[in-house]
């Protein structure tokens, strides 16, 4: 018998349709096991069954060789299984130690024993190599440190099996490094981890083994040394798709005419004197670490942020943009970084979301023409291949990739001349990623301009004609795609500058 701490045998689950089909999954003691698969492949459902959020239809779960029943989150915790959620579940206004002991406060004579809880929190944090004051309120921590606190919380409950769902999605490279160090040290202490991620490079850096889910089935499993990125992607996509997505494709449109020109733009103390331009039909990449000013620059052009000074010209004409409505009117669109909070109204239908920026176009003499609105929505759904039950269902039922396509669709309806995308492929599966990249390519080929922000350098290299590297609010490099031979060069430019 191998040294398994967790075994899932023949797990099935259906919500009307079969989401999980006879899944066998095993986790060794002290290993980091990567779990990959497209959106809707069943990863989250499988993890939610393990952690007691959903109940399985059939199959068995063994922890340390004993079959167990997991009906709710508490059961799972008692068996040492804990999940670190993508959306952090900490209470922002409470301190680190209050969060860690939430719901199981240490009491003394009927009062909370703050001192004891702070001590124990410090002990756990120190063990993880974190130098944080347990009495800081969580809202003052960086996202990276919040994630660490979340892990500390799980460890404080004696978790032996951690499920990490896209933990690095909102971390800087340094924070990611730190997280990996902590994961390594947890591993040596016998903690096992299931690591869900879309980032192949990270998987190869940190994981010991990998499993691929596709359409509710476990299609591939391997020790990490015995496989390759190409092989994993192949299994994720199935046999039909090709893996050429991230290869550079020659662009058909090129022009020397400047579409958008940014002159001496200053946003705050740090981001000052930004100068650049985007040509017609050009895809301009903005590379840089988080906090380098990428998001701030596009949000300022879009009118969400106020500029200190500087000018923005569109087709040579001065743009006076004081709010996002002005930008929209000028033909500038922004696909924001956080699709759930900024991009969509989650409780509203797919149709209402798609039509939102351009609803006035369907209003004649004060009446919205419902037929026209429905047809326009259907056209967008078809054009961008948005997979949904019906346009009249709330958009929060859609998968991340389809939600993101809806955000793009809603902006394409205004026919923008300048499209700015801020991390448009974060956290979505590779199939949807490919579709989005193709949408952007086609759109630029029609003579429109694109500003594309991404932390995934391979993606920037695949799609951009030119890349600006930002460093602490300063443009440090302006490189033509042709001049970059390898991803490492760009990585180096971003890190050092």
């Amino acid at each position, binding site marked *: 018998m191998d040294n398994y701490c967790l075994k899932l045998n023949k797990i099935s689950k259906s919500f009307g349709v079969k989401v999980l089909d006879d899944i066998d999954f095993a986790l060794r003691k002290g290993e980091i096991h990567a779990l990959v698969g497209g959106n*809707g492949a069943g990863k989250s459902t499988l993890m939610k069954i393990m952690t007691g959020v959903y109940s399985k239809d059939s199959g068995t779960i063994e922890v340390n060789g004993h079959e167990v029943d997991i009906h709710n989150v508490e059961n799972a915790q008692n068996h040492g299984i804990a999940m670190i959620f993508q959306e952090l579940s900490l209470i922002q206004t409470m301190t680190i130690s209050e969060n860690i002991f939430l719901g199981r406060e240490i009491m003394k004579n009927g009062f909370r024993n703050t001192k004891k809880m702070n001590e124990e929190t410090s002990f756990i944090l120190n063990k993880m190599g974190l130098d944080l004051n347990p009495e800081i309120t969580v809202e003052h921590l960086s996202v990276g440190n919040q994630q660490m606190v979340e892990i500390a919380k799980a460890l404080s409950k004696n978790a032996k099996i951690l499920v990490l769902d896209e933990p690095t999605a909102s971390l800087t490279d340094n924070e990611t490094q730190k997280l990996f160090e902590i994961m390594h040290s947890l591993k040596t202490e016998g903690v096992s981890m299931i690591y869900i991620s879309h980032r192949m490079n990270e998987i190869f850096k940190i994981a010991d083994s990998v499993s691929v889910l596709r359409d509710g089935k476990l299609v591939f499993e391997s020790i990490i040394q015995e496989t390759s990125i190409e092989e994993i992607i192949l299994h994720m996509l199935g046999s*039909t*798709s090709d893996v050429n997505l991230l290869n550079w494709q020659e662009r058909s449109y090129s022009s020397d005419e400047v579409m958008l020109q940014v002159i001496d733009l200053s946003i705050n103390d740090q981001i000052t004197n930004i100068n650049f331009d985007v040509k017609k039909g050009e895809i301009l990449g903005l590379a840089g670490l988080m906090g380098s000013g990428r998001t701030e620059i596009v949000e300022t052009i*879009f009118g*969400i942020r106020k500029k200190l000074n500087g000018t923005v010209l569109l087709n040579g004409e001065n743009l006076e943009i004081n*709010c*996002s*409505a002005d*930008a*929209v*009117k000028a033909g500038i669109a*922004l696909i*924001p970084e956080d699709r759930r*909070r*900024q*991009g*969509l*109204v*989650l*409780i*509203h239908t797919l149709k*209402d979301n798609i*039509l*939102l*920026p351009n*609803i*006035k176009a*369907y*209003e004649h003499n*004060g*009446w*919205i023409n419902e037929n026209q609105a*429905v047809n326009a929505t*259907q056209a967008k*759904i*078809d054009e961008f*291949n*948005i*997979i*949904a*039950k*019906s*346009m*009249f*269902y*709330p958009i929060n039922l859609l998968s991340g990739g389809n939600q993101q396509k809806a955000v793009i669709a*809603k902006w394409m309806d205004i026919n923008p001349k300048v499209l700015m995308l801020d991390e448009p492929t974060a956290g979505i599966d590779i*199939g949807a990623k490919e579709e989005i990249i193709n949408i952007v390519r086609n759109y630029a080929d029609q003579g429109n301009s694109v500003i594309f922000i991404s932390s995934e350098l391979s993606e920037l290299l695949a799609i951009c004609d030119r890349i600006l590297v930002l460093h602490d609010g300063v443009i440090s490099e302006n490189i033509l795609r042709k001049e970059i031979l390898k991803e490492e060069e760009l990585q180096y430019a971003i890190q050092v500058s």
Partner: protein
Amino acid sequence: MQSKLVNKKHAKPIPFDKLMVYIIFVIVFVFFSILLEPKGFLNITNLLNILRQTAVISIMAVGGTFVMASGQIDLTVGAVAAMSSVFSALVLQKNGSIILSVLAGICFGTFVGLINGLLVTKLRLPAFLATLGVMQLVRGSAMKITDTSAIPIDNDTFTYIFGAGSVGSIPILVFWTMLIYLIGAYIFYKSSFGRHVLATGGNRLSAEYSGIKTEKVLIISFIISGLLAGLGGVLYAGRLSAGRFSYGDGDEMSVIAAVVLGGTAMSGGTGAILGSLVGSLLMGIINNALILANLSSAEQMMIRGAIIVVSVAVSNLTQKIQKAA
């Protein structure tokens, strides 16, 4: 890749949150019809009376729907109605012009709505606190300028058009209600402004990122609410032939109850104009039935409260069951 599951038939989910008020209304109505049949609950005069008594709340609930669908709350409507009734009565007394008198009432309401909107957007006060303060300010002012006495109105044309009159046997207030609901439903369902209100209430950040001027949307929503509260005050003055500081006491709560019963979420982003009318009528028949049943006012108040709690609870439970299914 996945196969395409787009349903060309455009299936729509059943909006139980919006339908619940109609079901509850029918149940309550049938219940009282049987129970209070001997007391004359079903008499045409009684039913018309209910419509007349609920008219002002119903009209203010249109404004309430806009404000609450945009994620805000307006506690000033009762006080505004009181002050508007006083202004209308005063102008009528001093000047005699019906048009000026009505304008005075409506403009005052619009003005308060504007102030509320500015406090909430420009000064970023929470709507609950801003309108709580303005409510007391307005009602206090109404008390002060009238010295707590009523301003009588003896203009028959005014009282006929704005309250006491009827066309055939239908009270004129019913026509006012219908008119406001037609306009309200059109703006809410058929204009782009209605979509902007819902988007702002559903996710203000996302609306902002979609190029919607959310501050403007909120200010206009408060203005609609204020304007209709002003109209409500004019109608109080017409129905009761006087302007008085005490009119509309507690109306803000009735309006909120009617709007929430009608299927508008207090958190914003979803709303139903006609639901608010049914919600208002539902409370109207409950009030009426309790009086017919000869209950003391203390008992009436207790039962009214209990019915509101039960209705909203039933509505929430159905939604939960629906979601779990």
